């Protein structure tokens, strides 16, 4: 599998007067898992969404395999066509799954292959079936999202993304909307993907996943990227007080 790298440098993002990302630098190596953690509202989703330009950053650079994302030159947005071209290589999985409810699982996965990649329907459906098999849903291809559990829906959403053969996958709290007993099945699919060498950027509150699967963990607070380190470094020897405080709150909330 080809895997992309992402280079984020000096990225700033404003919502009106609100400074949501402050000079963010982050280097995402190919074939590795990078987890983004931090308190709610710290800008994790915003940063993630700047990578595929669902959110337009105001200054700085996001480069995917060296190619500037979203702009031809600073301040000059790229054409829609070029943007779509670049997005093809980037899969995204959302907290709320965002499946298309009027299509079956198979149609959800095949849709992009047909409309974006231009594959004939039969080939698209064959590939969609493969992708669904990979996430353990070979027997649910004909179900509409309303007839699937949350965990199954999220796995369809992952299949929809990987069917497009991306070189980079973005996950925005993929398990936060799930009942606790369904979290595992989604994390397992993500672990498999990681073991195959996919570049993954994962915003998550699953500290266990971050600790065991991530190659590096980035901590954000108030729009700043406070630190990037190995999971070991972040969780066991945090160099910044803010990380320490965050983890303490997390542990207190999860202790029983």
């Amino acid at each position, binding site marked *: 599998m080809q895997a992309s790298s992402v280079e984020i440098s000096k990225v700033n993002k404003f919502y009106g007067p609100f400074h949501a990302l402050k000079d963010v630098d982050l280097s995402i190596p190919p074939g590795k898992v990078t987890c983004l953690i931090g308190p709610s509202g710290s800008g994790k989703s915003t940063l993630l969404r700047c990578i*595929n330009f*669902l959110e337009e950053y105001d200054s700085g650079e996001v480069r995917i395999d060296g190619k500037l994302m979203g702009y031809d030159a600073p301040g000059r947005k790229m054409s*829609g066509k070029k943007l*779509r*071209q670049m*997005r*093809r290589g*980037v*899969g*995204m999985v*959302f907290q*709320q799954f*965002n*499946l*298309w*409810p*009027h299509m079956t699982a198979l149609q959800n996965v095949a*849709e*992009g292959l047909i*409309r*974006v990649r231009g594959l004939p329907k039969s080939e698209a459906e064959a590939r969609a079936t493969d992708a669904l098999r990979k996430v353990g849903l070979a027997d649910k291809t004909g179900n*509409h999202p*309303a*007839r699937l559990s949350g965990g199954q829906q999220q796995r369809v*959403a992952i299949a*929809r*993304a990987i069917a*497009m053969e991306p070189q980079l996958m973005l996950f925005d709290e993929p398990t936060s909307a799930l009942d606790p007993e369904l979290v595992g099945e989604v994390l397992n699919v993500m672990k498999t993907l990681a073991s195959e060498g996919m570049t993954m950027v994962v915003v998550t509150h699953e500290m266990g996943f971050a600790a065991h699967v991530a190659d590096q963990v980035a901590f954000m607070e108030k729009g700043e990227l406070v630190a990037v380190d190995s999971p070991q470094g972040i969780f066991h020897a945090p160099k910044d007080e803010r990380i320490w405080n965050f983890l303490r709150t997390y542990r207190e909330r999860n202790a029983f």
Partner: protein
Amino acid sequence: MDLVSQYGPALLRGFGITVICWILGTIFGMALGLVIALIQRYAPRPVRWLIQIYIEVIRGTPFLVQLFVLYYGGPLIGLRLDALPAGLLGLTIYGSPYFAEIFRSGFRAVAHGQIEAARAIGMTEPTIIRRILLPLGLVSALPALVNFSIILTKETVILSIITVPELMYQVSRMSAETFRYVEANLVLALFFWALVETISRLGRRLEARITQHLIERT
């Protein structure tokens, strides 16, 4: 009894024309409303303002007045239409802003995330409209669409004043010629009741059919 043989055929023909006016007026009005709703969603601001003015003007004036202007005022600007086409055009224009508003709120009901998911895999905007926004927006809009098309059935009676020979026109003629106001208006009520009942039943069936996959089984 010979009232039936004398006026029955004309009343039936009138009802037929009412139904045709309603069907075509609804289809054209919906189509124009859909175009307006899409323009309002995607066009640059000055265009949206112009459309907004159109919506306010049409919604702010009675259908009767619009029809008069179109039929009697039209020839002054070279728009010379027969009664039936004028009536259909009138219905189309009259219904379009209401349909546009219904579509607009239908589109707004489509979760933004579902549009973003399509953008994220690189779909073009026209494809997103066709494959995601329209089908899902239509589902949300369906009850209101059926409701407004039922309201439109009753607006067709106004076409009688520009001499479209629809049901109201025939009923008025029968009343004037026979002074049997009660019977004539009873016929009018019965026909409309049948039409409205049929539409709302079909609407409910259609709704049940297209939402069957969308509702979570509990």
